[in-house]
């Protein structure tokens, strides 16, 4: 069954351990000009940062509170990036992660256009750049272990397990405590994601896109592409028919003229 992660944003203390664990496990360099923690303007996902923790100062109950939002690929149930890739370089696995296979990638960047969460990034400074995004530590997940970021969190922000279980947990948590926003982010967005979020401040204030529909984006392409074979064949038949018909009509017209002359 597909695994997932539930993130309780009310518990996050913004320590950034998860971003460090990600760098270590995936063997990626820290770069001074690309911090993994900080306000949204400076802590950005990039080819070097598969996950970041963004700080938000938010007006709440007549005062101000700090909230910290960990961002990474959401590993959609029906990933737009994978459906958009024309070389199968992005694939959703049974276990949940959406994995990138660099040797298949052509570098067209259509996946970046397709992802509604703007997750895939590109190695702009390389001669042969690759797409870059969180892989949900797929090798760990295959073995039944939690992703690196999840396993190091000191504040109990994450629950790791079957997505369906997590969704039930999330719903019961927010049902029991009215200070939560009564919505699980990731339950339905773009057809649902493997990562689920609950929060006590509105998601759009934490930089989550809330204008995304609930239909998997691949539906739109599929509804269009499914007609291709039919259109190709019938158009071919029509053209061939017209070709012979008009040619004959022209010949007859010419013969008529000749007769009259």
């Amino acid at each position, binding site marked *: 069954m597909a695994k997932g992660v539930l993130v309780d944003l009310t518990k996050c203390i913004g320590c950034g351990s998860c971003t460090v664990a990600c760098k270590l496990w995936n063997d990626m360099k820290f770069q001074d000009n690309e911090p993994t923690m900080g306000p949204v303007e400076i802590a950005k*996902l*990039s080819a070097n940062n598969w996950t970041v923790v963004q700080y938000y100062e938010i007006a709440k109950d007549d005062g101000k509170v700090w909230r910290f939002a960990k961002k990474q690929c959401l590993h959609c149930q029906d990933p*737009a990036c*994978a*459906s*958009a*890739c*024309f*070389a*199968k*370089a992005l694939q959703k696995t049974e276990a949940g992660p959406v994995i990138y296979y660099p040797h*298949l*990638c*052509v*570098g*067209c*960047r*259509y996946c*970046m*256009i*397709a992802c*509604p969460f*703007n997750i895939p*990034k*590109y*190695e*702009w*400074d*390389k*001669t*042969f*750049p*690759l797409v870059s995004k969180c892989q949900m530590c797929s090798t760990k997940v295959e073995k039944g272990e939690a992703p690196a970021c999840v396993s190091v969190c000191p504040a109990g922000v994450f629950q790791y397990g079957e997505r369906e279980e997590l969704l039930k947990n999330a719903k019961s948590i927010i049902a029991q405590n009215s200070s939560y926003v009564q919505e699980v982010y990731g339950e339905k967005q*773009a057809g649902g994601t493997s990562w689920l979020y609950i929060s006590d401040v509105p998601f759009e204030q934490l930089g989550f*896109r809330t*204008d*995304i*529909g609930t239909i998997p*984006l*691949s539906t*739109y*392409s*599929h*509804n*269009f*592409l499914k007609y*291709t074979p039919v*259109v*190709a064949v019938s*158009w*071919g038949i029509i*053209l*061939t028919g*017209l*070709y012979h018909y*008009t*040619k004959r*009509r*022209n010949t007859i017209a010419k013969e008529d003229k000749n007769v009259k002359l």
Partner: protein
Amino acid sequence: MTAQGWSFRMTPIRKLLILLATICLGVCIFRLVTGLGIVTNLNDEWPWGLWIGFDVLTGVALAGGGYFTAIVVHVLHRDQYHAIARGAMLTSLLGYLLVMAGLFLDIGQWFNFWRPFVSWGHTSVLFEVFWCVSCYTTVQILEFGEIFTERVGKKWHNAFKKAMPVLLIVGIIFPTLHQSSLGGLYLIAVDKLYPLWWSTLIPYFFLISSFFVGPAMICVESTLAGKAYNHKVPVEVLRGLAKIGGYFMLLYLALKIFDLSNRNVWDLVFAGNLESTMFLLELGFGVIIPILIVFSGMSKSRSGLFIYGLLVSGGVILNRMNVVFTGMSGKAGASYFPSIWEWAVSIGLVSIGVLAYCFIVENFRILEHEEHHA
């Protein structure tokens, strides 16, 4: 064509074009060895820029004159339009070759370009675009074989001639599919592309507009070629083609109006922001005014037809640019303006196209060709 040697006249304009082409080639080589970051202004918020927007999306649409003429002349056998057939198909072939060049420059792993031929990402609209554009370019090269063998490798000429009807029909099916799928690429950007352009009908808008830009491009091209080569296509021929285009523009307009009402976005049309202004410009100057020209006395004159051609082509260019830039800018959260190198490549590619056109027209039977071959 009596002279047996190859000829290529030198003029000041051509010298300029050669200069632009040389700069372009230099930048291309530099780009291929250094990557995209140094040469382009692309970034994570703007993964697709001028090369995709202009060289590919717009280029393919403008090259639509090829399949338009193929349908009118060779399938419907409207022989009176024969005079423009070879010219239009040549422009189209060159257009596609430039599109392929633009695409090749834009992909990061360019040595991996063949990958989708074996690793089938068939759920992707881009997969359809990729296959159709590659196949169609091949078909067009084969079609050109008929002209080429009139002069070089004459013994193959009959074989090409025999293959023409099949090639022509296959050569209409492919562009029909991928002109629409170029629009279809944006179906998946449902939450990103501004609603004035995003619609489940976008593939059909792309298809119809690629079809009616055909006669417009022919009007522009034959006016220019007419000046340069003293080869005048009769006004009535051009007018007839423009009228066919006009009916398709009416269809387009009706579909647009239906679509805007259907999706209930008329308020966006007149919202007065950047998007609405660009949208109105595109529709007003690119569709409505040209329709008025075509169906009035203005289309009886060469200059009227030339203006019509410029407006329609400009409108289609603007439309594609609006989809790639204006429509996506709202959700991009950053800005993009093409670098001087990106401009140099785009301009240079067009220069190469013009030079190739001149060379081929001067050395093969393109313009004065009248005979019926199918």
